[in-house]
């Protein structure tokens, strides 16, 4: 018993080395997904964020047809980068609503003028309340909402050009 016990510290040491090495080669996933995927959208009723778009309420997202709910902000740089992809989705016939986080109407108007406006309705979430209720952890994020108002998918970060077919697939399977 004593004889092999002497090797225990070395075994423990090698075990720790293996643990740390695996951590180095397989870094932590730092993206926090919403736990509400698959569940109904929390109820909200937001004022209009832009001068020429109507406000947004959660009931309007349960309209029988899958839609996109884009979480963006005028102060967010990647949000401007995903604008062409949202425009492409809109051109493909996808209805897109949006929530502007911690924003002001003048800033949203200027942002939309600069980057285009693919949105049907835009709600203003000045204090991130709806964002927190959605389990969203940043901007931009895009939710696929099915016809019954349930969250079918959450896309974290900007939509890149090669994400567009995947988003269209998600919309189709949410039908």
């Amino acid at each position: 018993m004593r004889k092999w016990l002497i090797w225990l510290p070395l075994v423990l040491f090698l075990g720790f080395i293996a643990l740390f090495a695996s951590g180095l080669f397989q870094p932590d996933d730092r993206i926090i997904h919403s736990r509400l995927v698959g569940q109904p959208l929390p109820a909200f009723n937001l004022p209009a964020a832009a001068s020429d778009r109507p406000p947004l309420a959660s009931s309007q997202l349960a309209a029988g047809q899958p839609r996109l709910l884009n979480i963006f902000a005028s102060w967010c740089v990647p949000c401007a980068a995903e604008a062409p992809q949202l425009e492409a989705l809109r051109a493909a016939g996808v209805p897109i609503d949006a929530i502007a986080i911690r924003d002001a109407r003048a800033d949203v108007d200027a942002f939309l003028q600069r980057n285009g406006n693919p949105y049907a309705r835009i709600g203003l979430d000045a204090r991130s309340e709806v964002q927190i209720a959605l389990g969203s952890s940043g901007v931009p994020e895009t939710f696929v909402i099915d016809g019954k108002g349930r969250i079918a998918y959450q896309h974290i970060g900007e939509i890149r050009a090669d994400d567009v077919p995947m988003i269209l697939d998600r919309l189709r399977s949410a039908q």
Partner: protein
Amino acid sequence: MKYLVLLFALIAAPLSAQTALPPAPYANQQIADPALERKAKALMETIRCLTCQSQSIADSNASMAGDMRSQIRERIMAGEQPEAIRAWLITRYGDWVSYEPTAAPILWPLWAAPLVLLGLGLLLLRGRIKRKGRA
């Protein structure tokens, strides 16, 4: 010229500014009632910030952490219990958002560790005492 530069420096907005909006009302302001503030503060120190992931929202300057602080203070003032707010956040962000360990089965080894270590220590001690008695 020097003053002009100084003036520009004063009016320039920092490039990394997150938002143009002022913080939510209770992001940096305490509740007037100290007992409620203590409750809110204890909760905020165990809620993890989503933007700066290794800080609590009480320590973080991220605008989202400020909004979460304000929301927590307002809900505590409305009479909600801290553990109910924590549970509400966990249904949105998972156990990840709370620094307080739960009783979930995956954490049982963590809770058992002190007992196991204490038991090991007692075993070692018993061996030593026996050996000493013999000598």
